């Protein structure tokens, strides 16, 4: 029972980077901007989140602000190059990925210098919800987490409501399905693409900052470990919808936690096999779901209103 509580609690805790990054990816994709720079934006978010907090004397808020800001800048760059300059989205995404990866290790070296052990920042405090956290079992699993866990859940529900229950959400989705039609109805397609790409970048940057702020207390090179790429897969088989993204993140987080707990449990298989599991499981799930999933019709394309046909 105790180990089940711990497992579920850790799964919820580890779900956050997946939720944030995948909702960011989903949001951009809903207007047709396909971001593939997650790994790089998360790395630079983790790096600046750490540095920001470190420079501000351990202020979590400054760290988060720094990560969100840099994520937004990357989102803006993606929107500008693809929407205004109409360059290939995948190629631009890769360039941003590389720049993000490079900056993530460069900045700590410039600010802190090369040290034997990186300094530590305080990690996010748990914020038990009064009363609710007293419930046996559920209280520990659901209601005594750090603030970003709650934020991830509220965000997912909020995005669902926004995209599928409001006029603006409908307009936004139409840009990703058929910008030609949207444009003819007077919807400003460029504006929607810019806004979602920037907000998406911010969420992805925040997802990166979660890693040093909750897991390790410091930044290490390549600490995102493929989570950015897993996020893309997750967004695909969540059908680019907010609520399935939330459930899918739980699944991903469950696999991640399970593979680490097996490792700690001293089971007699080499740990390398366990560390392969998240990637292999993702590929396996894609085999069964990829054909059925719904993808925004205009995903990955750039809209040019002066062209006659799409």
């Amino acid at each position, binding site marked *: 029972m105790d180990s089940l509580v711990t497992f579920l609690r850790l799964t919820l805790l580890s779900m956050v980077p997946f939720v944030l990054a995948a909702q960011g990816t989903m949001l951009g994709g809903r207007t047709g901007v396909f971001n593939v720079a997650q790994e790089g934006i998360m790395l630079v978010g983790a790096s600046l989140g750490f540095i920001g907090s470190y420079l501000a004397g351990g202020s979590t808020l400054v760290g988060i602000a720094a990560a969100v800001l840099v994520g937004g800048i990357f989102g803006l760059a993606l929107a500008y190059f693809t929407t205004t300059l109409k*360059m290939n989205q995948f190629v631009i995404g890769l360039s941003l990925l*590389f*720049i993000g990866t490079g900056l993530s290790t460069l900045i700590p*070296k410039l600010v802190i210098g090369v040290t034997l052990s990186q300094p530590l920042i305080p990690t996010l405090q748990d914020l038990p919800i009064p009363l609710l956290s007293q419930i046996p079992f559920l209280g520990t699993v659901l209601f005594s987490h750090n603030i970003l866990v709650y934020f991830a859940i509220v965000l997912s529900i909020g995005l669902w409501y926004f995209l599928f229950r409001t006029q603006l959400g409908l307009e936004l989705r139409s840009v990703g399905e058929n910008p030609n039609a949207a444009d003819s109805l007077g919807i400003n397609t460029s504006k929607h693409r810019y806004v979602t790409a920037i907000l998406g970048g911010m969420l992805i940057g925040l997802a990166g900052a979660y890693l040093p702020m909750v897991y390790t207390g410091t930044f290490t090179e390549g600490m995102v470990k493929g989570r950015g790429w897993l996020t893309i897969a997750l967004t695909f088989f969540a059908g680019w919808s907010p609520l399935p993204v939330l459930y899918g993140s739980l699944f991903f987080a469950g696999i991640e936690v399970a593979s680490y707990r097996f490792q700690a449990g001293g089971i007699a298989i*080499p740990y390398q096999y366990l560390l*392969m599991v998240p990637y292999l499981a993702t*590929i396996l799930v894609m085999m069964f779901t990829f054909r059925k999933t719904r993808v925004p019709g205009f995903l990955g394309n750039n809209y040019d209103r002066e062209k006659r046909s799409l």
Partner: protein
Amino acid sequence: MTIVRKLVPYVIAIIASFAAAGIFIALTGANVFQAYETILFTSFRTPNGFVQTLLKFIPLTLQALAFTIPLTAGKFNMGGEGQMIVGAIAASVVGILGADLPAVILLPLVVLAGVAAGAIWGFIPAWLLYKFNINEILTSMLLNFVSFQIIDLVATGSLRDPVAGHPTTVQIGQGGFLPMLIKNPPLNAGLILALLVAAGVYLYTTRTTGGYELVATGANPRAAAVFGINVKRMFVFSIVLAGAIAGLSGVIEVAGVQHRLIVGLQHNFLVLGVIIALISRGNNLAVPFVAFFIAILEIGASAMQRTMNVPIEMVFIVEALVLLFVLLSDVFRRR
């Protein structure tokens, strides 16, 4: 005249990115011009520097080709790193187990094992694309992370060299070593292999029917299909060929340079390979030249880090910026 005009955007891109990096270098308090000099001329100051550059050039060229070949058919192979790693693993396992075999037998076996392993590793995303229509970018990338664990498993397993501190296998048999072109500083025959592959790929894509079908597939898959080209088979073929070439780069690292399997041998080759391929705009003829330029920067960057304490990532940013500026120049040409 046209070649000069083609080079103009590259020159501007290089100057602009160096200028941008100069600002960062100045922030570290280092002498900017001394840093530039180190980056650009380390490769040409000593014979050793030049050989080091060539040794970087080999895997970079092969990794870039492993990206441009599927790109010609309109597909993206992000698995060059993993294909290199499994190639290296296969080469070293064969090289260690067959250590007593004579070179005539062992060397071809080592090379073939590595190339085949890379091809198989490339076949997985290709097959998933063919059979299930799964995006090859994702699967090839995810397989890299799997290969990181496999190499760790092999290098810490029964073949481990107990004396080495870092996870490393014991040496492969002498018969599995690639012949040396120069003894000191050591330069192996992998250079010739890489140049042959580069020439072969160029001739294949420009002078043969199969290569033409590859180009046609990439240019317009629907039209190609109408004219009887099996487009999906071309996708598979291009990614498998890319895997084989990436596998060869792993073989050369093992049989030519290290003579053993070392965890982390892939360095940053995937990313640099993609950068080279994209700076070349997928042009196979341009790849070796761009790869040589990037090799110079990489060798210069390590020297800069050693002697001036400027982080090596600085040059990585320069390379990414060169790519971005080259891509931007396309936009301005369109107008």
